[in-house]
């Protein structure tokens, strides 16, 4: 967190802590406590939705679990309040584990559906067991249970105590989020902006999302438990799907992914709800009937103005956010410390998609410290080969070896640990990150410190942070991007963004680099830049496999070239050898070469057509 936001949080907390000494009416104070607890649930949701990019309509369900578990444990089992609260949060977290396990891998739309079904499932479960939950009346918590026992002394918890407790938790949650962001902020942003590219870079996308959803469920459960204690009842109408929608709206309205977004969101939502209820009752409706309409109206308002939220809008409106400064020069001179490149082998690899063989018994062997370029017509299986080596897909047959050791699990993060890093064809960079932060996300697979130690900023966590930053800086140095470290990624040119992808791959400290069409879409002028980066990496000892169409670049950087056609290796050798190979000419130039050959023989021009068509069909 930067200093300004930290001061805002502290100042707001101090002012808020004084509220009970001004507001003397119990009901008003209790309503303020409720608002703070909703904020707590929303801060938790922001972790999943804003940072990990998993839009969840399940937070109301987690809050409901926490509320009912806490109420039932306190009343029926006579548990102490703190322990019951922890148990409530734990039960919500357990449900969160089940939900997160599936949801972490899903496309965003299905995340919404699954969590929506979860919210309803919890609501039905509460209605289904009136013996336990009190049915429509809810599970009420008598005054006598609202006592805090410590050291043999019982203290009654009044509205003021609840208010201050809620405030403390809100502040802890916001500062905790900020601490988590210090460790995971860049990783989160990388996952949000392009999960596929993040996976390819070895970032454990599913695990990070799982953790974020789990944490958000636990915070939701805790907020639910406190809500029930504050209200003196876990009441079925206060939780469940409608609360899920409300919290979803709060996060979206303030701005998903902004630390203070939920706080802004809750203020606006409560104000609009208040006005809406007044209007509804004045025209003769009931407050309960008005609720879904009000929630729908706010939701409609949020999506109508885009889904970036108020803080983003305010920043742009007040011009607080400076447009990124374009740095004029990034250096072409680089410094790359020597590495020991790995020997990469793919043996007998076969992959088929729905009966179509994408790779057919393919083997390549790349010597350490050499640059191996794979070329071939579109659809010949080049990218599929990189995906298999990078662990994105498991081959039907065959295996990948680095330095003679077989890499078993098809998992990009495992591959990153084994020293393989891959870049994708496209460059989708998160605009909110600086170049250094983006490259830092690439260091994720080699970091050893998890969220808990990051939260308390243990010495090991600090060392880990320093080491990761060093690796990121080293990667920038190696690619000549050091001067641009502090500018935002979106201000880089297309060619520089290509180089940036390579820099991120380097941050995981690989020994084998897989680059998928690094020169796609960049001009001739920028090509030399890319070439010098690749040259210096090879000179430093990296083993590099490149898929590339740009024959100028291929000729300049390749030690060896392999040519694929329809999933088969049709030639392999030095640039000159391959260029002279007639099979390569025919396959690589495809239809035209066939035509030329046919014309040259001047007899059967028709012969060429069916073959070319057959190739297209295979694609």
């Amino acid at each position, binding site marked *: 967190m930067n200093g300004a936001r930290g001061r805002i949080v502290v100042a707001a907390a101090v002012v808020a802590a004084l509220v009970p000494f001004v507001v003397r009416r119990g009901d008003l104070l209790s309503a303020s406590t409720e608002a703070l607890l909703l904020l707590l649930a929303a801060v938790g949701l922001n972790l999943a939705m804003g940072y990990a990019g998993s839009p969840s309509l399940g937070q109301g369900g987690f809050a409901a679990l926490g509320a009912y578990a806490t109420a039932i444990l306190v009343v029926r089992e006579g548990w102490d309040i703190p322990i019951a609260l922890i148990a409530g949060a734990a039960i919500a977290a357990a449900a969160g584990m089940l939900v997160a396990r*599936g949801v972490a891998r899903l496309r*965003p739309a299905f995340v919404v559906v699954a969590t*929506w079904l979860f919210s309803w499932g919890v609501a*039905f479960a509460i209605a289904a067991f009136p013996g336990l939950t009190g049915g429509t009346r809810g599970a009420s918590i008598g005054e006598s249970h609202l006592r805090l026992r410590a050291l043999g002394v019982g203290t009654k918890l009044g509205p003021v105590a609840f208010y201050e407790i809620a405030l403390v938790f809100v502040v802890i949650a916001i500062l905790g989020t900020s601490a988590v962001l210090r460790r995971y902020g860049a990783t989160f942003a990388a996952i949000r902006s392009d999960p596929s590219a993040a996976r390819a870079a070895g970032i454990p996308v599913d695990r990070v999302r799982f953790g974020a959803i789990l944490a958000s469920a636990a915070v939701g459960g805790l907020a639910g438990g406190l809500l029930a204690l504050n209200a003196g009842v876990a009441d079925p109408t206060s939780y469940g799907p409608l609360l899920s929608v409300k919290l979803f709206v709060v996060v*979206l309205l303030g701005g998903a992914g902004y630390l203070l977004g939920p706080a802004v969101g809750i203020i606006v939502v409560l104000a609009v709800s208040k006005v809406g209820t007044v209007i509804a009752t004045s025209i003769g409706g009931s407050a309960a009937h008005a609720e879904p*309409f009000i929630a*729908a*109206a706010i939701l409609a308002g949020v999506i109508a103005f*885009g889904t970036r939220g108020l803080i983003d809008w305010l920043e742009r409106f007040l011009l607080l956010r400076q447009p990124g400064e374009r740095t004029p020069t990034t250096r072409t001179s680089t410094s790359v410390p020597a590495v020991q490149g790995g020997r990469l082998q793919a043996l007998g690899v076969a992959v088929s998609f729905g009966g179509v063989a994408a790779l057919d018994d393919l083997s390549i062997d790349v010597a350490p410290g050499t640059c191996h370029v794979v070329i071939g017509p579109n659809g010949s299986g080049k990218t599929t080969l990189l995906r298999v080596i990078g662990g994105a897909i498991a081959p039907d047959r065959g295996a990948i070896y680095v330095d003679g050791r077989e890499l078993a699990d098809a998992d990009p993060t495992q591959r990153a640990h084994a020293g393989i890093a891959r870049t994708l064809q496209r460059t989708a960079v998160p605009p909110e990150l600086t170049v250094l932060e983006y490259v830092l996300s690439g260091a994720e697979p080699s970091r050893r410190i998890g969220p808990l130690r990051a939260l308390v900023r243990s010495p090991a966590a600090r060392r880990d942070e320093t080491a990761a930053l060093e690796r990121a800086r080293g990667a920038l140095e190696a690619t000549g991007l050091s001067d641009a470290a502090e500018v935002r990624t979106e201000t880089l040119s297309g060619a520089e963004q290509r180089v940036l992808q390579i820099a991120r791959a380097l941050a995981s400290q690989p020994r084998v680099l897989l680059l998928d069409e690094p020169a796609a879409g960049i001009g001739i002028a920028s090509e030399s830049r890319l070439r010098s980066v690749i040259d210096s990496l090879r000179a430093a000892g990296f083993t590099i496999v490149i898929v590339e169409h740009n024959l100028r670049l291929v000729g300049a950087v390749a030690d060896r070239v392999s040519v694929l056609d329809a999933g088969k290796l049709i030639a392999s050798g030095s640039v000159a050898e391959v260029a002279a190979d007639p099979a390569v000419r025919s396959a690589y130039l495809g239809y035209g070469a066939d035509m030329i050959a046919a014309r040259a023989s001047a007899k059967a021009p028709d012969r060429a057509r069916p073959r070319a068509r057959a190739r297209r069909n295979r694609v």
Partner: protein
Amino acid sequence: MSFGLVVQVVISGLAAGAVYGLVAIGFALVWRLTSVLQLAYGDFVGGSMFLVLVVAAGTGPVTATNVSVWRYLIAIAVTLAAGAAAGSLFYFGILRPFIRRGSTLGWIGAVVAVALVIEGALASAFPREAYVLPDPLPFTRWAPISLPGGASLPMRTIWILFVGLALAAATGYLLTRTRFGSAVEAVSSEPVGAQIVGLPIDRLTALAFAVAGVLAGLAAIVGTPAGGTITTQTGLLLGLKAIAAALLGGLGSPSRVYRAALLLGVFEAAVVNLHVPGFPSLSFGPAWGDVAPLALVLVFIAFRAGRSMREPVE
């Protein structure tokens, strides 16, 4: 469980599943054709139910049979027409800008907002605990078919199963055998390409939503619970279970989704009727009827989510 009970469980499960199937087919159809997950679809079904009620019998108390067949037929016609109109209006009026922008959060928000509005409107306009939907089709006149073990197969169940199968076949035909089906699939899977080859994207998508609206109306009419008792939440509940069934079916072909829905119905009936002799605590009972299907689909998503639901790995 006795043999007769097992048969009865399967039959009542199939009957319930067939109704989920009708709605699930519509839900999956919208997804296939427009890449929108229509979370408000159950509410469209609920709205259709109450539209049938109002047109056929007004808001006064009705019994299942005191409505004239003519008025009932008019109600059906009105409901189906309204379903088509609501479907295309939903697209043009609400969803289109978000789909065009490719804003997932946008269309999700719109769909959820519409669901809340329909739920809220039904709850305000129909304050009574429950309503009876007229059902003049003479199923009660025919005796149920007796099966071995004391089970019986009501004619209504056969009717629902038959209509479900027919609709699954019809939507399957629509998707795979008609120009409309292939054109809309093209729009859904490759919008830019579809536009380049000159497909009228707007009209096709609106038509897809209209078809789904008609399906919602049909599901409301055919899927009336036995006895005709409905509440303002009947459609919503049906929609949630249908979504669960559609997800279990991998949002695939109509017949696959329909089969998944039948299985879900049988699963629900089995859970509700499960009694283990000597272990009363292992008997779930009817309370689990609404919880079990949703729990099942959440477990399914956690362990076996289909390819169509997962993020692609490049």
